[in-house]
């Protein structure tokens, strides 16, 4: 046979195989896309139905929304700027007091969350605790603590302890304990256990092993996560007030409900600024405690 023809024959076979594969690929892709769109449309119509989406209502409401924003903006004039601003922030002393309370709520909640997470995280690390029963119990406690939203705890605690910051601290602390405990035990499970073996071999008990071999390794990470949690808790503390659990949220809720427009913008602006300042300073602190590369 002519080798040239043989070559051509092979080329042709390869090419038709390629075309076949391409067509197959296109068909599966098209089918996937179709299924995806069908599901998407189903979810969309279903959600629109149960979500009581009403475009007319929305269109009617939209000017109201812009009006709302217009109303909340303070009337500032260049000529009387200073007095306008002081009018806008007429309640600054009271609001700063509430803001300070909010930060205190976040601080205490983070502290309590840290303490309980610290106690629970060692028994719930697979590599440090071989006792399956305590491991299981500690894991479940942390899971329940972090899966229930803060606001739900806050509702229950406000009912029990009455309106005020105390139930807010409890609610955020429980949630933080669960969230931090999970992160802490993940850190523990990545710890180098050579030192732990050393402590055990030289006659130390379990607590001494944790204290002298594990804690020095994991503590910087713990602190970094705790600071991150503090940032999150400041936000949480600013909204638990909506159900009566203290802080600036209570004041904000009142002004929104009573349509005191300029107060709304004043408090929201104050809140956003305070949260950003805390975020930025915590970030600086975190990068000092633990290298920048650890945190995305």
């Amino acid at each position, binding site marked *: 046979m002519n080798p040239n023809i043989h070559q051509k024959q092979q080329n042709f076979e390869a090419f038709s195989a390629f075309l076949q594969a391409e067509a197959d*690929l296109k068909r599966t892709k098209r089918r996937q896309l179709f299924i995806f769109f069908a599901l998407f449309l189903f*979810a*969309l119509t279903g959600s629109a139905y149960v*979500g009581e989406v009403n475009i007319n209502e929305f269109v009617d409401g939209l000017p109201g*929304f812009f009006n709302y924003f217009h109303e909340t903006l303070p009337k500032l004039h260049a000529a009387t700027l200073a007095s306008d601003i002081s009018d806008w922030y007429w309640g600054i002393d009271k609001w700063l007091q509430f803001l300070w309370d909010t930060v205190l709520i976040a601080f205490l909640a983070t502290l309590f969350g840290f303490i309980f997470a610290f106690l629970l995280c060692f028994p719930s690390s697979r590599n440090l605790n071989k006792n399956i029963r305590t491991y299981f119990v500690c894991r479940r406690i942390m899971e329940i603590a972090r899966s229930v939203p803060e606001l739900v705890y806050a509702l229950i605690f406000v*009912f*029990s302890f009455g309106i005020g910051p105390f139930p807010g601290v409890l609610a955020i602390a429980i949630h933080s304990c669960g969230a931090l405990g999970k992160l802490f035990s993940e850190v523990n499970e990545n710890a180098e256990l050579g030192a732990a073996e050393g402590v055990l071999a030289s006659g130390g008990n379990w607590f001494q092993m944790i204290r002298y071999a594990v804690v020095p390794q994991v503590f910087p990470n713990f602190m970094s996560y705790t600071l991150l949690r503090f940032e999150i808790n400041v936000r949480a503390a600013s909204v638990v007030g909506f159900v009566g659990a*203290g802080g600036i949220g209570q004041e904000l809720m009142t002004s929104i409900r009573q349509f005191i427009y300029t107060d709304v913008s004043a408090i929201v602006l104050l809140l956003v600024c305070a949260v*950003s300042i805390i975020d930025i300073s915590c970030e600086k602190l975190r990068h000092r405690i633990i290298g920048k590369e650890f945190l995305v």
Partner: protein
Amino acid sequence: MSRPLTAVDLNKIYPLYPAVFKRPLRQRLVRLLIWTGFTGFTIYCLGGLGFFEFNMISAGIKKLSGVIAFMLPPAAHGRLLDFIRAIFETLGMAFLGTLLAFFLALPMGFLGSKNIVGNPVFHFGLRRGFDFVRGIDALIWALVWINVVGLGPFAGILAIGCSVSGELAKLFSEAIENVDHKQIEGVRASGADAVQVMRYAIFPQVFPVILSNTLYYFESNTRSATILGIVGAGGIGLQLADRIRVLAWDQASLIIILILITVYLIDAASNYIRQRFIKAPGSRQFSSNK
């Protein structure tokens, strides 16, 4: 061979490693000062937030134990169907809210990335705008929208859409800023205009990132949708707040359990979808012909 340390051994060891057993005076003083300050601040907080009002606390604990007793066992009292409907309403709110945020964030993300719009003043301003929008919690947005469109799940959808759009826009513009420039150069070298560069060089790179972030936010929005109802924006939270208001604690605990199950299922489903269908940009593979 190991034997317990004796006092004699310790006396030998002390002078050899002074720093291990006794820290310098200055360091000890600084530590003492930090700890005193920390403890003092904590006590101030405890006092300020009512942790020393023992009457209130003991009464509260009594009431709380009563509540927990009433919560068990969870019961529906014939309202299970209402609750499940509310769960679906919550999921719908999360879905539409995420979708709204996605469509708001997509153009904003493109405008907010340095390599698309070069003007630094515009970039800085828009980025701070994103920060401001996402700095306002979804619950605050919900309260505002309730004033505009009234009580109900629609306000919740708009609230989720607003608060998450700032967050998504930030993530999208960061993803767009991190694209690989080789592909842009390649597409441009073959004669493409700006729109074609966006479509064929930038979009395929950022789309998986955008999709997986959006899915992640759907997950987190399900969690926030469950509580938006507590301030009146529909969904299961509304039912929960309502049941607590009439002190039907056994139904409230059932609702909490339903919320936990829903959140767990959504987490599992979105994890599955992320791993199965959306490949992260690093691990993108060409599908081999079978």
